[in-house]
């Protein structure tokens, strides 16, 4: 573990983040978008844990990441419920169809 530097962790986190963002922007399936969100959150988690290991955060960073995991679970539950409800109403999970809140 000692040979691995902080930059590597940050690189993995950034990769995950970019993958997540790309997933969110390109996927038309709502489930896919949700998966993108999970990727983004976990990218952030890796950053937090890395900073807790190498920075001055100490255990705070890890506890923050635990919070984020719990939050992600809750968010996924709510989002899936919304998706289900949307599906019941529109017979589709295509987020491009959900444009009723346009200006």
């Amino acid at each position, binding site marked *: 573990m000692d040979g691995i530097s902080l930059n590597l962790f940050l690189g993995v986190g950034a990769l995950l983040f970019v993958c997540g963002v790309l997933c969110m*922007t390109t996927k038309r399936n709502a489930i896919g978008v949700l998966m993108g969100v999970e990727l983004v959150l976990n990218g952030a988690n890796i950053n937090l844990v890395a900073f807790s290991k190498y920075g001055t955060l100490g255990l705070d960073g890890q506890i923050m990441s635990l919070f984020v995991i719990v939050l992600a679970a809750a968010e996924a539950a709510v989002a899936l419920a919304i998706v289900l409800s949307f599906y019941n109403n529109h017979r589709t999970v295509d*987020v491009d169809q959900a444009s009723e809140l*346009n*200006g």
Partner: protein
Amino acid sequence: MSPEIYTQIGSQLMWLLTAAWLLPLFGFMIEIFGGYWSPRTSKTPAYIAVGCIGTGFVLSLFALGIWVKAAEIDLLAFGGDEAHAVAHDDHAAEHEHPVAHDHDRADGHDEAHEHDEHAEAGHHEHGEDEHSEDAHGEGEHSHQDEDHHEHAVASHGHDSHAGNDPFKTAFAGTFYRLGKFGSLDVTLDWYIDGLTVLMFAMVTLIATCIHIFAIGYMSDELTEKYEDHFVHNADGSHFHRVGRFYRFFAYMSLFCFSMLGLVLAGNIFQVFVFWELVGVCSYLLIGFYVERKTASTAANKAFIMNRVGDFGFLIGLMIIWTWFGVFQFAETNPETIGEAGLFQMVRNSAGELETKGEGAEKTVVLQARQGIHKEHPVHATAATEIPYWLLVAAGLGIFAGCVGKSAQFPLQTWLPDAMEGPTPVSALVHSATMVAAGVYLVGRFYPMFTPEVLLVIAYAGCITLFVGATIAIVATDIKQVLAYSTISQLGYMMLALGVGGWLAGLFHLITHAFFKSLMFLCSGSVIHGCHHEQEMTKMGGLYKKMPITCWAMFVGVVAISGLAIPVLLVPKLGALAFSGYHSKDAIVASALTFSNLNPNHSLLFFMPLITAGITAFYMFRMWFMTFFGKPRDQHIYDHAHESPRVMTVPLIVLGFFAAFCAIGGENGPLAQLILTTEPTHLANGFESAGSVALSFPSHHQIHDNHATAGTVALLAALLGTLLAYLFYGAKLVDTDLMKRQFSGIHEFLREKWMFDELYDWMWVRPVHVVSSWAVAFDKQVLDRFLHFLSYLVVSISSWDRKFDEAVVDRIVNAVGETTFSIGRSLRVVQTGRIRQYVTFIALSVVSLFVLLFVFLPR
């Protein structure tokens, strides 16, 4: 006298009279608050009122008994006619009972009421028993230390104080000190002498009779829905309201309380307070039918005219306060006697004014301030003398108050209008209470009056008695006749007081109270029997319908006319006559003596003499017109009826007193009682007094003229009676023809000597003129200024409006419009596509990072 016995008698009298004074107030409280919440058909307020005033009468009788004993008047000494004299007081007590019982029988359906009434009667009985026991005990007591007692009261003020006190027996003291302002003590005092006690007995007796009478007279008001036939609504129907029975009796109780307080008051300021209370009560009662325009105006008139007199009263009070520094009549505490007290200040031990200097410099020495009555530190700043003219002014001021209250010329016009009140009120106002207050105060304040003031009093009375009597000749309203006769009789009293006949004036006050209240109640009975018809031109022949009223009225008419049958067999009795003869005789005798001594003022004798004839004429005219001849209005005659017993019994009681209260004349018990209080300086008269050089008659001189005066007065009265009989009884003279013949005079008298018109012209018109000027000033100057101001304000605000519209509104609108247009243009970005949003967010974050890296210094 021994101070212990003096103090003991004083406190006995004080407690009795104070209780008699406060009982009506207590009754008033219960009636006014309790009556409001109880049903309007309840007679309880009346029973409470009668109970209170009746108990007050019994207490006053005890006080009278104590006084008679203390002053050691031998009531039997007037001519061997013991039976009458003894009967006098006892009758009064006995008469209380039949009245209460009758009233019970007639009206006491309600058990509760009956109970009340019995309790009341029981109380009376109990009281009487006590009285007799008391009298018994007292008898023994006086037997034991006879020397002591005998010497005691009679000599008070003569021996023991060795010239300290120029006045006969009087008791005075203080209830309560309201406050001390500098040297001025404002206190609630009491002052009791023969006059006080007698007034208490008279007022409470008459008020009791009137209260009982009113139970019958006011029974119309015992309803939830009283119909006032004299008030019309806008649609022509009669006015309806709830009955005000309880309120009537509450006001009557308050009235009695005020009058008794006035009589008991021990200082002139307190007199003024109760004076005003009496005025307020008369206002409330005269305006009892407040919905009638005439009644409310009459109440206002009475009140305002009295205020005119009270203005003088206030000036008198101010002079007294400034120069004397005390308001108390007299200081009678054996310890401190002579230190203060108005009477003891002005009069020396012989009862005379001590003057210094002449002309404008003339002053009156204030005796008490000289330290001659008793060694005491003289107040450093207090005046020791008062300018003579200021004493005259003070006397005239106080008398001005009496002029208003006793309806003397020139303030007499309120009294006939006061007839708008219910008849029992007229009876009370015109006999025992309101108008008596003025005469009473002149009598009470007599030592303060200088000869000049007395002359004014005499002439005021002289004019009043003639004016009143002449108007009464032509009046056709039965109550108006009595009202004008009241004015005339009050004039007699004032005249008597003014010419030095102190006894005669107050004697007439008492006798007049009895026969005038009797006649008013009779007229009330007639009005009640004729269903509220007051015009004598619609009456006639009522003798057959209401005999009791007729004969009661006859007693009153004979009494006021002063008719008598000379009796030679009982020389000391003088003549067989009703009360009015004796008192009027005394007045005419005083006036005759005065005019003999002062030939310049012989008018003061001839006027009352002529008026005595006129009095008999108009009184018999009223009696004949009402009760005899053919009925002038058959409808009213057919429906007329005798009044119920609750109304006739008071008539009989009052009739008895009107007939016999003055028995024995000036030697009789009543006059002797009044004499116990007469200011000492009067007994021997005085010559060339004051700056007008008047001589006042002594008792002895008056007595010498008694027979002459009595004869001429009786002749005048007989002549008047005869004329009245010829005119209205026998109808030998056609009165309508007379009326046409003297239409000018008749019209003048019908218009009441044009006094109302004169006052209208003298006071009301000028006020109207001045007010029209004020209106013009208002309209031309004040209104224009105000209009200018308002125009200014309007124009300023219109400029302000323009500024608002042009500047403020535009700024606000511009902000709003800008916000709106920005929002409209930002709408385009809000596509609703979630992927686009995410792209924006990502791009924004990236660009933020780029910006941070580029611009943030490291």
